């Protein structure tokens, strides 16, 4: 016996009934196309693929650093959060170089028709091409790129209201943005203590600006820690466990932005203080300029040069590559565009396929997925050739 729902005839007529209903409805439908998709529009507004930025102001932030201010050519800057970065696509000679810069201005300053964002750049920091910016970008120039990127920001659902920032050198930029946002009445309830390490007093980036915020806003405190300024009246030396402990509260969140040696130093201190991943947020940490100093690197290889066969679609190029440079840099030198963002292995925009050969992957910021590792996919920005390679990269 099969089921009876309402009666034999009504039951067996179901298929015809639902088909007739559907066909009738379709026939009645409006013939006017409706291409609107407000949800995709909002997604595109939040994450524009390609933007044009006009430089509207350049000013000094210290004897060795400058602030570049940009407005968007179309007047719209997507909402971002303090700590996120802009990715510029710089046309330098034959190459297109994509380079990330943390936004140093506050999110609120980007709103409205005159909204802007700023980056703060220090001279002579390796491979982030700051010298090129210093020498080439003038007020009125246009640069291409997009924003926002990155996951280094204060997340109220996760982080403590008490934030201890650990900054080194130009690593002050995300915290300057955050401090300004707090001073503007945003990030409600957050108390920010910035432990800012510099070598000498005149190395301090954005010193006057930071002083002004501290004076104006009781929720922001800046502690300068100078390593080579004997007459300094404040904290001296490095940002040690003792200094961190002095400015910490129970269960506070630590946010780090600075160079690799400082990262290692601070990480050790926090480990000793028993601070786990939940309470320690850090920005992308740049790999050292000398790959051979990385743990696990087969020393001696860095002197070598290799060939890389680069597959894009059905097209192949063979390029020269120095063992001492990441694969992405060799591609850029050869004028082959690759979509890099974070430049240190975390974000995965430059995810590529290793078809033949061997690479060294930096253990710093290795953001590869487990299956990517198993199946030979790598992030070109933080992988160095150890042999001749054959790789497949996305067409740009």
């Amino acid at each position, binding site marked *: 016996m*099969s*089921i*009876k*729902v*309402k009666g034999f005839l*009504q*039951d*067996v007529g*179901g*298929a015809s*009934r*639902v*088909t007739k*209903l*559907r*066909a009738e*409805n*379709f*026939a*009645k*439908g*409006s*013939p006017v*196309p*409706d*291409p609107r*998709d*407000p*949800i*995709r529009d*909002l*997604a595109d507004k*939040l*994450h524009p693929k390609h933007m044009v930025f006009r430089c509207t102001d350049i000013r000094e932030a210290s004897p060795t650093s400058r602030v570049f201010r940009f407005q968007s050519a179309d007047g719209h800057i997507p*909402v971002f959060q303090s700590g996120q970065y802009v990715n510029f696509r710089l046309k330098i000679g034959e190459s297109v170089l994509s380079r990330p810069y943390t936004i140093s201005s506050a999110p609120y300053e980007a*709103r409205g028709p005159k909204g802007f964002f700023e980056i703060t750049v220090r001279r002579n920091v390796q491979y982030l091409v700051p010298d090129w910016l210093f020498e080439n970008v003038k007020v009125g120039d246009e640069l291409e790129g997009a924003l926002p990127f990155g*996951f280094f920001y204060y*997340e109220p*659902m*996760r982080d403590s209201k008490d934030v201890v920032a650990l900054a080194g050198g130009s690593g002050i930029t995300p915290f300057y943005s955050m401090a300004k946002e707090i001073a503007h009445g945003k990030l409600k309830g957050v108390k920010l203590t910035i432990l800012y390490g510099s070598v000498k007093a005149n190395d301090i980036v954005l010193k006057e600006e930071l002083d002004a915020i501290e004076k104006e806003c009781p929720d922001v405190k800046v502690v300068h820690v100078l390593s080579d300024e004997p007459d300094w009246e404040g904290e001296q030396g490095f940002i040690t466990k003792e200094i961190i402990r002095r400015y910490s509260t129970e*269960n506070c969140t630590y946010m780090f932005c600075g160079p690799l040696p400082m990262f290692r130093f601070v990480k050790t201190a926090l480990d000793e203080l028993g601070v786990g*991943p*939940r309470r320690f947020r850090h920005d992308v940490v740049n790999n050292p300029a000398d790959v051979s100093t990385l743990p696990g690197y087969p020393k001696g290889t860095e002197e070598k040069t290799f060939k890389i066969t680069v597959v*894009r*679609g*059905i*097209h192949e190029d063979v390029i020269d590559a120095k063992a001492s440079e990441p694969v992405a840099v060799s591609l850029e030198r050869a004028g082959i565009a690759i*979509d890099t963002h974070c430049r240190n292995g975390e974000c*995965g*925009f430059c*995810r590529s396929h290793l078809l033949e050969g061997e690479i060294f992957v930096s253990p710093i910021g290795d953001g590869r*997925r*487990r*299956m*990517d590792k*198993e*199946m030979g*996919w790598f992030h070109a920005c933080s992988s160095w050739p150890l042999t001749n390679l054959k790789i497949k990269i*996305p*067409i740009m």
Partner: protein
Amino acid sequence: MKFYKDHYDVVIIGGALAGMSACLQLQAWGIKDILILEKHNMPGGLATDFVRNGFEIEATLHEMMSIGQPGRRLKVGQFFDDMGIDIDWLPVHECYRVALPNSGIDKILHHDYDGSYRTVAKEIDEVCPGTYEKVHELMLLCRRVYDSMNILSVTPMSKVQMLMKHPDFVKTVGYSATEVIKTFDLPQKAVEMLTPYWIYVGNRMDDLPFTIYAFLMADYFTGSYVCKGFSHEMSMKMQAKCEEQGAQYEFNQEVVKILVKDGKVTGVRTARGDEIACDYVISGPYPNRVYTQMIEPLSEVPVGAIKMINNRKLSVVPVSVIMVIEGTPEENGITNYSTFSGTTMDTNKIWENYSNLTEPYNYITTICLNYANPTLPEGYTQLSITALVPSKPFESVKEEEYFDLKRRLANEMIEECIRITKVDFRPRITEFEVTTPISVAHYVGAWKGNIYGYLHSMEDHAVARLQMKEKDHFIEGLEFAGAHGMSGDGMGPQITNGRAAAKAVKEDMEKKKEAAEA
């Protein structure tokens, strides 16, 4: 510089599960000249994961259905085996916990791999004594409908034949889940315990075709799986197989136009401007996008296609809070894999609540991956909380309010979850992401952020879709593969949708070949 050949037999737009399945199926039939163009730089679309601060986090997969145990494979599992794709399937040891404090229900239900459905009947009987026979009979009815549906979707037969061989299927097609379940005269509590999965097909029980409900119940109560290497494993292995068998698969290539001449597909154009000729296009993008934006020229779009898309209602979209939490699941009050909970199981009320953005969501799904995947880092809980809601309210969200909205929704969903876990794990949140239809639109470009295709309703019934297959086909050489396909939403059905598109292409090729020979 030439990155593409001048011509391909088939161009597949979107290298997600459906697109890749279409490719694999075509390759199995000897059709090898295939180009897959994927918008993102990862395969699999939503079947993916992400890494934050060293934690690898599943983005979407709750359960992979129709896999079956080795030696007793079901449709999707068999397909992977047949294709030589070896996925490390990890069984999920339960169906779900249904926790409805207002109804006095808190029970974990389990599947039977052998499809006997005795365990679920027994477990419901423990809560509602005397219901064993009825629940068991309802589950067996679901199974017969499931089996019939699987046969009929590939083997057409006459109405008389259908009635003879598949009477239960035929007789329940015209009714909603509510109407058929009513005939079993079950107590309210038992009905509520058998309702939770409705959300995985996204319509109220009063408007959800029993056929779909039955398919879902029969399938899920034979057990589900996840991948050891997250859903990314499935996507990666499918992509590798497509490429190994000669398909060209390119990332970061969004197709913006489908070129049509005299009612027939001639090629595609990508965002970077490549024009690629082909005979067939299998489209991941929704018909709504294709017929209103992508066909070039738009004058090639028949008015019937516009009428069709204007008449179809979209299904639900996910709002998910995805977290890594310090501490073991037990320490965070979580004792099982999958929990449906809320203030009600009245799906009409839930639907009303889901259709606005002002009240907290009153029905949520909580998934704790640790209980299915033992390879996760120790001492941390990987938890996601999801509501699947209509996309409409998100259409009016403003850019400036979006981040606050996400956090509010997340906090409300966590509070609903905590009513069950009884442990407020918020101070231990270590990684935190919220995904919305806007995130879906951003990553995969799906129409209005829709992952579930068109609403399964009595007006747009799966059986009617099947019967109107020919009528719904408007442009020669253009097929669709995605959640908007015949088999609807979910990762398992995407495999089936992809294969159906491949079948349509193969049959058309054969027809043309015969015509040319004649």
